[in-house]
């Protein structure tokens, strides 16, 4: 795991500081994804969001993603930090930062990590609108999804 890390926090996220923590001396590039609260989704205005996690399982799933990334890709370090609690418009909800000797691997891994995180890590988002609120349900594309309650 080298100096990779994965965290959940209710504090605001400093993108630059997280990106910097994954940088080893021999590395050429860091690619960072910064996801944040959109003001409009499908034309509807969001006032704010709340993120909730199944924290111990979320950390385990994040750790698995990083382990798998180190197996699949030629990378140095990975940092994943997801914010929880109430977030205002424009605030960063997630930062994924990947350093690698070659930038291609950093881009590829960062994109793979956000895709997998959105599929597997047990974190949920509640959107608050002027006229209501809703827990957003993902697209449920987990391979191992079981629907035996149907």
């Amino acid at each position, binding site marked *: 795991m080298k100096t990779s890390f994965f965290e959940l926090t209710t504090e605001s996220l400093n993108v630059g500081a997280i990106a910097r923590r994954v940088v080893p001396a021999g590395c050429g590039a860091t690619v960072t994804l910064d996801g944040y609260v959109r003001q409009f989704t499908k034309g509807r205005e969001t006032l704010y969001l709340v993120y909730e996690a199944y924290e111990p399982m979320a950390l385990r799933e994040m750790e698995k993603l990083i382990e798998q990334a180190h197996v699949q890709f030629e990378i140095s370090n990975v940092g994943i930090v997801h914010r929880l609690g109430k977030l205002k418009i424009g605030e960063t*909800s997630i930062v994924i930062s990947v350093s690698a000797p070659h930038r291609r691997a950093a881009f590829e891994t960062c994109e793979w990590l956000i895709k997998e995180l*959105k599929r597997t890590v047990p974190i949920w988002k509640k959107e608050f609108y002027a006229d209501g609120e809703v827990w957003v349900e993902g697209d*449920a594309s987990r391979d191992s999804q079981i629907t035996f309650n149907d």
Partner: protein
Amino acid sequence: MINVSVLFFGATAEAVGERQMEIDLQQPTNAREAFTEIVETFPQLKSHSLLYAVNQEYAGGDEAINDGDELAIFTAVSGG
């Protein structure tokens, strides 16, 4: 009888009105049987597409369920 914890998050916590409960189950054959029994108790969960976990790992259905296990029922994740 075995005793398990059941956790709910987000939409399932809202549907059930609880975030955590202790439940007694007749020793279930596997995770599928255990979760089916729990969902029957809370039929309001049936309108959601559900995912299941046993001891903080996604459950495929065939996992053994033992006394003291931590079960969780939640909807497709929406982090990021």
